[in-house]
C-alpha cells in the first residue's frame, strides 16, 4: 500500500480485518470517529494498544446513535463492564455487528442482549413493555401496551414459560424478513 499511517501497525490492522467485517480503510475511519468523540482522551497512536475507554455519555452523542431509543442499551451490551464504557476494540466490535455484512445469528445474539433490559437472559414482560414504550414514545395507552406485550409473548414463546428465552427469540427472528435490514447502522 502506498499510504503510510502510524495509527496502527500492519499486524493490528490485519487482526482487525480478520475479526470484524470492516476493511482497513473503514477501520481507520472508525478510529477517526472514535478520536473526534474525545480528542484529548483518545491517543492518535494505537500501536501499543493503549487502554483508553470512553464513557457512555460521549458515545451516545454520535449522530448515528443519538436519536435511537435503544442507544444506551446498545452501548451497554457491547461494553465489557456492562456500564457502557467502550474501548476502541469494543467500539469497532459494536459497529461490526451492526454493519451490513454481519450474519443473522450474530445480530440476533446482540439484539437479544439489547432488548434484555434487566439482563436476566430472558425477555420478560417488563422488558417488552419498556421496548414498546421506547418504540412508540409512550403514545400507546397502558392497556394497549399490556395487550400487545401479551400477544407478542404468546406468539413467540415456545416453551411455555411466559417469557422469551434466546431460543424463542432466535426462532422468531428467523421469520422476520426485515431484521437484517433494520438492525443495521451505517457508519
Amino acid at each position, binding site marked *: 500500500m502506498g499510504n503510510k499511517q502510524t495509527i496502527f501497525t500492519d499486524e493490528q490492522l490485519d487482526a482487525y480485518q480478520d475479526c470484524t467485517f470492516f476493511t482497513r480503510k473503514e477501520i481507520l475511519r472508525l478510529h477517526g470517529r472514535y478520536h473526534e468523540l474525545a480528542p484529548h482522551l483518545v491517543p492518535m497512536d494505537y500501536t501499543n494498544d493503549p487502554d483508553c475507554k470512553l464513557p457512555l455519555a460521549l458515545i451516545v452523542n454520535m449522530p448515528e446513535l443519538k436519536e435511537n431509543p435503544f442507544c444506551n442499551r446498545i452501548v451497554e451490551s457491547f461494553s465489557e463492564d456492562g456500564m457502557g464504557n467502550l474501548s476502541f476494540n*469494543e467500539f469497532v466490535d459494536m459497529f461490526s455487528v451492526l454493519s451490513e455484512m454481519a450474519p443473522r445469528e450474530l445480530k440476533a445474539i446482540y439484539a437479544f442482549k439489547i432488548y434484555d433490559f434487566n439482563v436476566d437472559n430472558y425477555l420478560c414482560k417488563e422488558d417488552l413493555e419498556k421496548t414498546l414504550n421506547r418504540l412508540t414514545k409512550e403514545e400507546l395507552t397502558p392497556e394497549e401496551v399490556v395487550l400487545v406485550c401479551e400477544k407478542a409473548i404468546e406468539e413467540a414463546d415456545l416453551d*411455555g414459560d411466559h417469557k422469551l428465552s434466546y431460543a424463542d427469540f432466535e426462532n422468531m427472528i428467523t421469520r422476520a424478513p426485515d431484521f437484517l435490514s433494520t438492525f443495521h447502522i451505517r457508519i
Partner: protein
Amino acid sequence: MARSPQRQSSREEYDYTEEYGSHSDQQSLRLRRVPSRVSNQNPPQFDWSSPHEEEDEEGSSGPPRDLRATPLPMALKRAMRQIQQMRVPVVSSRESWKRKKAKSLRKLKESGRGFLSFFSLWSKTLQKIGGNFGGGVQSYFLFLRFLVVLNFVSFLLIAGFVLIPSIVFRSVGSKLINSTGPEACMEYDPNPQGLVVFYNYFLDLLSGTGFMEYSYLFYGYYNNTMVEDVNFSYNIPLAYLLTAVFYFIFCLICIIVRMGTAARVVVATGVSTVGNYSMIAFTSWDYGCLGDRATKLKQKNIHYGLQVDLEEESMKKRAATLTLLQKIVLYSLRVSMCVLSLGLIIAAFFGIFKATEFSQKNSLQGGILGLFFEYLPSIVITAGNFVVPLLCDQIALIERYAPSNTVIVALLRSVFLRLVSLGVLLFTLWGQITCDGAENTGDCKLCQYNHLIYQCWETRVGQEMYKLTLFDFLINIAVLILVEFPRRMVVDNWSNKLTQWVGRQEFVVSANVLGLVYGQTVVWTGALFCPLLPLINTLKFILLFYFKKITLFYNCRPALKTFRSTTSTFFFLVVLLFGWGLGTVVIIYSVAEIRPSMGCGPFSVFPSMWSIVPMSFQKLSITSQEFLFFIGSQSFSIPLFALSCVVMCYFVALASVYGKSVALLRAQLKLEGRDKQFLVKQIEMLSQSQHILN
C-alpha cells in the same frame, strides 16, 4: 448423549449468552456443565478444546469466518486469532495449498467487491433516503436504479449490434436489395416539402415527426443492407430482429435473477400475517434512522402500525360474528362494487379506443391543434390512470375489506387498468393498421396493411410509444412543479383547518412504482419500432430519480400506512413481469403476422419480419443446418423435456423435504423447551427434598 458438532457449537453460543450476562445465582441445568466459555466475572479464559477441532475439520474457509461471527469481545477474538496463527496445523501439502488458494480467492473477492461498490450508482443517496424515509421508499428508488441500469445495458446491446453497424454501412454505402411490389405501397415521404416554420422543429421534437421521423430514432431509417465481404458478413435485418429478441430474453433473465433473491426471503419467512406483534416489537425499529424528525415520524409510524393491527384483529373478530343476513348483504355489496369498478375501467378503455381512432384519423393536421390530436391517446390514458384509481380507492373503502386487503385490491385494479389501457391503445392501432384483421379487404388489399394512412406503420407505432414516454415524463415534472411544490408552500405558510387536513404530500410508493412499470412497458412494446427508446428511457429515469429525490426531501412526509407486501421488491418485479408479457405479445404478433411496410425499413422486401430467419438459415453451412435441425427435432427435444421434468421434480422434492425438516425442527425446539422446564422442576423438587432431609 451423542451430539453433532453443529448442534454443540450452537448450544455453546447459547450457553455463552446465558453466562456472559448472568448475575443471578440461579443455576439452570445447562450451566451445571463446566464453563467452557468466557464469563463476566472471571478473567478471560480460553477454551482450547472443541472449537478448533471443528474448525480444522471444516477446512480452509473455517477460521477467519468463524472469528468474525463469534459473539466474543474484540480482545478475545484477537487473542484467539493469535493463537490460531501460532498453531501450525498438521495438514497435507495439498490441503495447505487449497487453503492458500481459498484465502487468496477471498481476498480477491473482497477487493473486487470494493472496486464494484465504487461503480454502484447513487449508493450514498439511497442510504440517506433509507435513513430518513424508511425501507419502503428506499425500495422504490432501488427499483428505479435497477431499471436505469437495465435500460442502459439494453441500449448498449442495441447500439452495438444495430445502430453502429447501420451508421458504418450507411456511410460506406453498401448495396441495397431492390424491392419489388406495387408502386403505391412503396411510397414513403417523411420529410414535408416547402417552407418549414421554425416552431415546427419544436413540434416535431415532441411528436417524433418531421426531421425526427427519418432518423436513427425510428425503424423507417434503417436499411436492409446485407454486407457480404470475403471474410466478413453482416446482415442488418437479421441483426435487428435477433437483437430485439435477445433484448427481451435478457430483460427476462435480469428480472428473474433479481426475483430469485427476493423470492428466497418471501418463501423462507412466509406471507406476513397481520398482528405479528412480536416481530413488530423487535424488528420494526430501523437502527439506521437518522435525524430527529425521522425518528419521531418512525415512532408515529410504529404506533400507527400497531393500532392498525389491533383494529384489524377486532375487525376479524367482528366479521366472525356476523349473522347470515349481514354476510349476504356484505357479499352482495362487494360484488356490486366490483362490478362498478370494472364498469369504470371498461369506460376508460372505451375512451382510449375512441381517442386513438380519432387521433390516427386526424393526424395530418398541423400546428398546435395537430399536436393536441397527436397526444390525445396519451392524455386520455393519463387522465384515466389518474381518475379511475381514485374512484377505485373510494370503492374499496365501501367494500369494507381488512385494511391490508383493501390496499392490495386497489393496487391490483390500478395495475390492471394501466397495463390493459396500454393494451387497448395497441389493439386500436393494430386494428387500424391491418383493417381490423381483415388484411385482404378495403384499404389493406393492395399491401396487406393500410398504406393510405400508414406509409410506414412501424415508424408510426414507434412514434406513438415515443409520445407516450415523453408525455409520461412531462406529466411527472408538471405534477411536481404545479402540484407538489405549491402544496407544500401553502401547507407550510398558511395554517388553517383545511391545510392541516390536506397536509403535506405523502410519498405513496405503490403508485409511483406503477408509474415506473408503465413507463418500462411502453419501452418494451416500442423497442422494436424505435430502437433508441431504451436510451431515451434511461435519460428519462435518471432525470426522474433526481426530480423524485428533490420532491421527496422538500415536499413529502413518509406514508403513515405501509404494508410490507405492497412495498416489497418481489411484488414490484411480479408487476414488471406482467408488463414484459405485454411487450412480448406485441413483438411476437408484429414479427410473425403483420406484413412489414414496403416503403421503409430493413424488412421491406420480406413477407414478414420472421422470414429473414429461415432465409439466413439456408445460408449456413450444411453441418450447422443439420445440427440445428437435430436440436429442433423430436429425438432431441423429447429427451430434453423429460430431463427437465426430472430436474424439476428433484427440486420440488427437495423443497418439500426442507419444509418438512423445518417443521420438524420447530416442533423439536418446542419439545426441548418443555423438557428443560420439566427437568428444572425435577431438580428443584430434588433439592427441596434434600434440604428437608438435611
